[in-house]
């Protein structure tokens, strides 16, 4: 395990923690909404370095985790059809739906292929004109420009045998949904760095103002996360609620305009179901009407599939920061990364899977804990 001694700048990290300790006068709950940050926090034990009164909770920042069971079942129904080449990012292959996962379907004869980039699917579609090539378009705003480009190019080039199953989710509506919950405990947010590299952070300003909550756009390296946490705690102690940017080396307030423009030409905002959480209004993208010929959900008529999630899993409460993995009786027992029961265990970026990977399901004396 890599802890403080291996940081890129140990002294800065120590001073940042010292400064948090110096200015902090009462307990605060801070949530990160980026799976990369969650993974980094748990791997490096950053939550153990902070004063006990600063609690880090792990939000719905992993797109693989929050892709609804219903959409995964739809993906599997499409992948099983004869004449279909079903393409996906590698992360989705082992995520179980109600039945099997894509990897198992592949072993049973379905043509399931892992792609590095969504535009690779266009090459596959051109090379297989008699097959229907479907791409499972999951992701947050970071991934939307890449997926949008694939559809845009398909229409431009007249590639009719390419469609996408859209499962796009958006961060700001999820933050708003967490803040609206009567059970909400979160008092400040570390905003997602790479999402904001694309979208900028103007959308976060009305949320920060409306709910009086600090939001600091933060990178995913250990020092970024400590600095972001310091900036949130400083705002809370000074009774400020603003959007600040810790990740200035990558994020601009306006984001990447060229990427945003293509996203808006291809997608429009829609309501979206999140695994573990349920439906959040205006929290996803769907294809615009002009691109309906590339909409797999329409072409394969899977709209009827309506899957309910198992009730035993508490991932919804974990994703909202109400509970932690240890609060779940199934954590590390009935529910493991090999046999996940719900959202936060299905990918390495989920809170439960990250806790499990770094030994936090073990008894305290067995688990590795930084000095």
């Amino acid at each position, binding site marked *: 395990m890599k802890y403080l001694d291996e940081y890129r700048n140990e002294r800065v990290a120590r001073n940042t923690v010292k400064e948090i300790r110096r200015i902090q006068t009462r307990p605060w709950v801070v949530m990160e909404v980026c799976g990369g940050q969650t993974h980094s926090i748990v791997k490096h034990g950053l939550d153990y370095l902070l004063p006990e009164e600063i609690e880090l909770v792990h939000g719905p920042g992993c797109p693989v985790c929050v892709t609804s069971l219903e959409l995964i079942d739809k993906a599997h129904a499409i992948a099983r059809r004869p004449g279909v080449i079903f393409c996906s990012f590698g992360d989705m292959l082992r995520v179980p739906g109600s039945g099997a996962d894509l990897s198992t379907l592949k072993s049973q004869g379905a043509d399931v292929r892992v792609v590095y980039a969504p535009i690779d699917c266009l090459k596959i579609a051109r090379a297989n004109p008699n097959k229907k090539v479907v791409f499972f378009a999951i992701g947050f705003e970071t991934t939307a420009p890449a997926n949008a480009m694939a559809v845009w190019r398909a229409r431009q080039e007249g590639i009719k045998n390419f469609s996408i199953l859209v499962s796009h989710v958006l961060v700001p509506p999820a933050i708003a949904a967490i803040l609206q919950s009567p059970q909400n405990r979160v008092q400040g947010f570390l905003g997602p760095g*790479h999402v904001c590299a694309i979208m900028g952070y103007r959308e976060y300003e009305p949320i920060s103002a409306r709910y009086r909550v600090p939001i600091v756009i933060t990178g995913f390296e250990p020092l970024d996360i400590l600095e972001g946490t310091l900036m949130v705690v400083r705002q809370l102690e000074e009774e400020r609620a603003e959007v600040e940017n810790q990740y200035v*080396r990558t994020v601009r307030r306006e984001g990447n305009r060229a990427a945003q423009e293509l996203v808006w030409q291809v997608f429009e905002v829609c309501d979206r179901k999140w695994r573990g959480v349920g439906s959040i209004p205006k929290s996803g993208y769907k294809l615009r009407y002009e691109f309906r010929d590339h909409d797999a959900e329409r072409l394969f008529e899977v709209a009827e599939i309506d899957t309910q999630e198992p009730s035993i899993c508490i991932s919804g409460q974990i994703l909202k920061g109400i509970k932690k993995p240890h609060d779940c009786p199934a954590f590390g027992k009935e529910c493991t990364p090999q046999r996940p029961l719900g959202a936060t265990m299905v990918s390495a970026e989920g809170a439960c899977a990250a806790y499990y990977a770094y030994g936090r399901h073990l008894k305290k004396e067995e688990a590795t804990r930084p000095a």
Partner: protein
Amino acid sequence: MCLGIPGKVLEFFDARGLLMAKVQFGGIVREACLQYLPEAKVGDYVIVHVGFAISKIDEEEAARTYKLLEEMGQLTELSAPVVEEKPTARGKS
């Protein structure tokens, strides 16, 4: 999976009108689309997410970030199969 992987732009080419580049990630060279970052030049370091360059980054940070992603096991997407197609390459510097 929103994390981008830093790499060095080696050379540009055109793929059916799309601005593409060969980008080096550690010991692996893959194609990336530069359509959203047209200001990038050969020798620049860029953050690439699912085959698209999304922002520039300096060399030192690129090296540090790459190492961190490697430790976190977050470089697996680079091992996804390469989809070959007849090249339509044209030079661009």
